[in-house]
């Protein structure tokens, strides 16, 4: 058994064949992850006790001859913005460095109900704000493929544990590309499902209308299985969808022959060859699988970044108000008045990027500016969504790059927030439109850095997206 390369079917096969028990696998997975973690800093917290208890339940089911669930015995990491009962959940922020939630996120409940084993909590950018995982209050994550480089962000830890082999799969969250970009940087599969497909209950809100929980894995099939386990209506999230959840994993084998794929021209203009060549090579493979490829246009793309940073910061400014030192989290010890308590607790507790976004968001919502910024951004968001709706009248899926460039060096862009924001150009549109999108590995640059290809489909067409990605993966042979 090579623990660093296991897939979900291999875990379940090993358990059924009694090559190992769930407790043995979990014990070894925890040992390995803890030994390897100093290289990348991908885990912030290990939840040994909870993991071993979950493993014991799986073993008991096996012994009783019961179904162990689609994730039975599978070691999983959960991004630290998703709350876990009795397990510290910091959002990689100083202000929550001591916070232990009294409840589980719906995704966590469902993951464990399907037999999943949570090894621990994955590092990320503070409150999921960032594109490099350098904004964590507990130190950056290193890219397991090239340790001097960033793993991408904000779900850098969730991508790194999968690439490093210290979890079989993981959960991340995506608001503007925070799953797909790190997946592409680390060479693994990362999926942002349709908005509302997975309950946000227990996902610490960054930008509520854009936040998604989604899976990371080394194979497309494993992401399909993980998404299938956590997706579906949740009465605790008013924005969760009632749409039925298909058996994604069972549909992977269906042919992709005759599917129409669109290449949005706005996403390829000026793309550097080191990335562009890999994407076009991927498109060739899809053509060989029988897909028809045409060029399409998403004409409002150029407004996406401005739109995104108005809407997301506006929502940030309200969502992060609850972190005020009054009821939980870290309270500054220096304060004599209520106003000082707020200012000092928030001033000391939040990092630079979080403060920047709170200020931007407070500004765009302030009296007299609302119409010019927030309201206009919502209108543009509708136009961007219509671009996709029109495109999907012509094609079944869109193929684009995930990031304009591969993983950059730690520290390289940290002082240039605008450059950092621009790196989200290809991913934020999918979030703004709320459509499913994913990154699937499509080889490496000449320097050996992973490149991800993005597949986008219309709302709730995850099955088409997974099928394309799976057939491509088989034909292209690019697995982490």
């Amino acid at each position, binding site marked *: 058994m090579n623990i660093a390369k296991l897939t979900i079917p291999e875990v379940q096969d090993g358990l059924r064949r009694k090559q190992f028990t769930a407790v043995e696998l979990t014990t070894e997975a925890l040992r390995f992850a803890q030994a390897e973690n100093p290289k990348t800093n991908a885990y912030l917290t290990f939840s040994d006790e909870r993991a071993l208890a979950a493993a014991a339940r799986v073993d008991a089911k096996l012994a009783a001859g019961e179904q162990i669930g689609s994730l039975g015995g599978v070691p999983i990491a959960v991004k630290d913005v*998703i*709350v876990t009962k009795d397990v510290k*959940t910091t*959002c990689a922020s100083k202000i*929550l460095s001591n*916070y232990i*939630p*009294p*409840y589980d*996120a719906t995704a966590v409940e469902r993951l464990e109900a399907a037999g999943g084993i949570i090894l621990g909590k994955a590092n990320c950018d503070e409150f999921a704000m960032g594109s490099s995982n350098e904004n964590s209050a507990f130190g950056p994550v290193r890219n397991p493929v090239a340790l001097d480089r960033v793993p991408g962000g904000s779900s850098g830890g969730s991508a790194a544990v999968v690439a490093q082999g210290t979890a079989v799969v993981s959960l991340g969250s995506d608001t503007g590309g925070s799953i797909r970009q790190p997946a592409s940087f680390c060479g693994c599969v990362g999926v942002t499902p349709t908005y509302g497909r997975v309950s*946000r*209950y*227990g*996902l*610490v*809100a960054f*930008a*509520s*209308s854009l936040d998604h929980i989604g899976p990371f894995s080394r194979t497309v099939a494993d992401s399909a299985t993980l998404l299938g386990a956590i997706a579906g209506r949740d*009465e*605790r*999230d*008013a*924005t969760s969808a009632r749409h039925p959840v298909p058996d994604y994993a069972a549909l992977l084998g269906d042919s992709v022959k005759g599917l129409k794929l669109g290449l949005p021209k706005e996403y390829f203009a000026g793309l550097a060859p080191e990335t562009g060549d890999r994407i076009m090579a991927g498109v060739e493979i899809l053509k060989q699988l029988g897909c028809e490829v045409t060029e399409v246009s998403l004409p409002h793309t150029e407004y996406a970044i401005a739109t995104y940073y108005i809407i997301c910061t*506006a*929502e940030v*400014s*309200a969502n*992060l*108000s*609850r*972190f*005020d030192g*009054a*009821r*939980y989290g870290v309270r500054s010890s220096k304060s004599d008045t*209520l106003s000082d308590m*707020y200012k000092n607790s928030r001033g000391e507790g939040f990092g630079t990027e979080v403060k920047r976004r709170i200020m931007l968001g*407070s500004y765009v*919502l*302030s*009296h007299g500016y*609302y119409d010019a910024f*927030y309201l206009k951004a919502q209108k543009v968001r509708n136009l961007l969504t219509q671009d996709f709706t029109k495109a999907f009248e012509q094609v079944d899926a869109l193929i684009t790059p995930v990031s304009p460039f591969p993983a950059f060096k730690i520290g390289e862009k940290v002082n240039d927030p605008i450059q950092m924001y621009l790196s989200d150009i290809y991913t934020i549109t999918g979030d703004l439109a709320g459509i499913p999108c994913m990154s699937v590995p499509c080889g490496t640059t000449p320097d050996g850095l992973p490149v991800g290809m993005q597949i986008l489909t219309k709302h709730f067409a995850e099955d088409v997206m997974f099928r394309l990605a799976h057939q491509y993966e088989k034909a292209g042979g690019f697995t982490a």
Partner: protein
Amino acid sequence: MAKYEVVIGLEVHAQLSTRTKIFCSCPTSFGAQPNTNVCPVCLGLPGALPVLSRGAVELGAKGAIALNCAVQPESVFARKNYFYPDLPKGYQISQFDKPLALAGHLDVHVNGETKRIGITRVHMEDDAGKSVHDGFKDSDRFTYVDLNRSGTPLIEIVSEPDIRSSDEAVEYFNEVRQALVFAEVSACDMEKGHLRCDANVSMRLKGAEKFGTRAEVKNLNSFRFLKQAIEYEMERQVEILESGGRVIQETRLFNPDLGETISMRSKEEAHDYRYFPEPDLIPVHVSQEWLTQLKASMPELPQARRARFINEYGLRDYDAQILTSSRDTADYFERAARASSDPKQAANWVVGDLAGLLKADGKEIPESPIPAEHIGELITLITTGELSGKLAKEIFPKMYATGDSPSVIAEREGLKQISDTGALEKIVDEIIASNPKQVEQYKGGKTTVIGFLVGQVMKQSRGQANPATVNAILAEKLK
């Protein structure tokens, strides 16, 4: 003061009578141990999400209908951002540009005149928790926060600036209260904080078209405080204007101990609430069909009931007003009226004797020891001549004290009216025999003395004699 006119608009906040909170299923019960009726949602814990309760929307819509408002087909929740320790999310979930209901009104009666007060809007929102500043041994250094109230469903009712006196304001506030109580939307128990209001008060010269600069007095939780606060503001603002100053736009607090308002924050310090649509909730859609059902299920509202009391029972306007002052009173009266043959008499007993006894006892009508049916029975006994009015008045306090029916008390105390001529003639003969002087005066032409003789007979009979019969017998015997 005489040359000025006050302009008042009220924002009334009422707690909806749901058993659970607006965005989670925690109970709204009053008086629980601090921070026990709470969950991740109403504690505003990281990751928790609100889910709108259908029951709250139903009650909110009923309230809006009771206030003659148009419930909107679509309304949208919005976040109202401000910091306070008992506001756990750092924002209140309210409604802003798309409220639940618009354009209503209520008629108020002041000094014998009826006036229509416009209602701009009704919107829904969640309540904050409570900051406790005293009662703990270290209260001089710490404020405690109780979040049991957090997430309690409220409606805010915003009036047009149509109110022109403190009395009108009090009457309007009371009419709102009655409408909500009658519609079973809110218990409106002011002691439990179910109902409070903010008053926007400004002064202008009589005849002026433009409004003056207003001050907003926050959190008035009784009719008396509302009246006092408005009157204090009127004097304060007139004083400023008369001395050549300018009233500044600000938020003020009422100090009930001093009967004064004090400045809380100026316009410059006013919160910028940075409203934006609540992304965690989807818009509220209300179908015409559902509204029709809702209207059909609603109880009769006070103004309609008042009109019916006048038309159906022939009550005087004044009595109808008092009897519809609360739903309990109106229900009680109607039970009494139905149990008797004379609704007007029922009204007299409820408004008069019963109200007096209750007041002396510090009780409200639901706590009345006299069941409404007993009042009906009492009236029937009077109508059939079994009890005299005087006896009835005597029995009533006993009904109140014991809870027994009037016939049981009359039976027990032997207090039946004597209309039997034979029995009465005997008493009359005795009285004539023992009062020769008065008999002589009567025969001498001073007929008014018969009243004295009737009184003697009544006394002799311990009030049980039927006075009309006594009168007739006496007149016959003294011919």
